[in-house]
């Protein structure tokens, strides 16, 4: 985020409430998906606000927090179509610890149209 502030670049924080892929349908829809997605949005907004507060007044040109219900890889790749860069953690919610690179990260890298920056968990990044 600091990098976006340095460059005065707009930043989108995207969180995906993962959909269940059905046997016969593309996506299984549960009645509480809408609620869960809204919860994800709130959580992402809170974390974003916390990080922004840590920047001591500096801001990226704009920060948008979006939550969608869908398949993470698909949503990230689509969101990256008009982006200069996708930023991901190397292992998020989806990974087994034995996986070398998160499955989401590696699939996004395969399909992305723009560079993908992978930041390891618990890594202190100064820019």
């Amino acid at each position, binding site marked *: 985020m600091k990098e976006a502030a340095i460059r005065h670049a707009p930043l989108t924080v995207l969180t995906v409430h993962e959909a269940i892929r059905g046997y016969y349908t593309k996506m299984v829809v549960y009645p509480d998906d809408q609620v869960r997605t809204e919860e994800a949005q709130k959580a992402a907004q809170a974390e974003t606000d916390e990080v922004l507060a840590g920047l001591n007044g500096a801001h990226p040109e704009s920060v948008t927090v979006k939550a969608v219900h869908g398949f993470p890889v698909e949503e990230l790749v689509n969101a990256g179509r008009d982006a200069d860069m996708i930023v991901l953690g190397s292992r998020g919610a989806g990974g087994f610890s034995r996986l070398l690179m998160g499955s989401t990260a590696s699939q996004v890298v395969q399909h992305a149209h723009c*560079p*993908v*920056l992978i930041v390891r968990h618990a*890594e202190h990044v*100064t820019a």
Partner: protein
Amino acid sequence: MPTDTPSAGNLYLVVGYDGSPPATRALDAAVALLAGRTGSIEVVYVAHLTTAEMMSAGAIAEMEVSFEDIERELRAQAAEQLRGHEDRWEFRHGQGPITEVLVKTAEELRDSHPGDSVVIVVGSSSQAMHRIVGSVAVSLARHAPVPLMIVP
């Protein structure tokens, strides 16, 4: 336009470069990333004798000579690509497993420039990464002590 920009340290980019189209795109992406920032690009060519232990000394010497030729060509190719776009770069030649060399280069930069940022930049399917996201990218994602940028 925001007035309060956080103080940006230098940005050091370690680019794995073998002259292939993905490596060329990785270098272009590094140039774009460095634009407007202070710092520099380390263009790193890694020669790796995978089966050194199985070769005679003479054969190894011969391969090392050809690595020097390759290095010269790659340095010229990188210079050509960067001319007019970016002159803050250096060419390095390393020997050993690609991941190790890139990680070591990044660690040296990080340790000698505390407070600055170091990012490793690789193409997503350079020769060393036949499979779309090959062993190098995966291994880097796991071992890189700094953020890793993978360029499609």
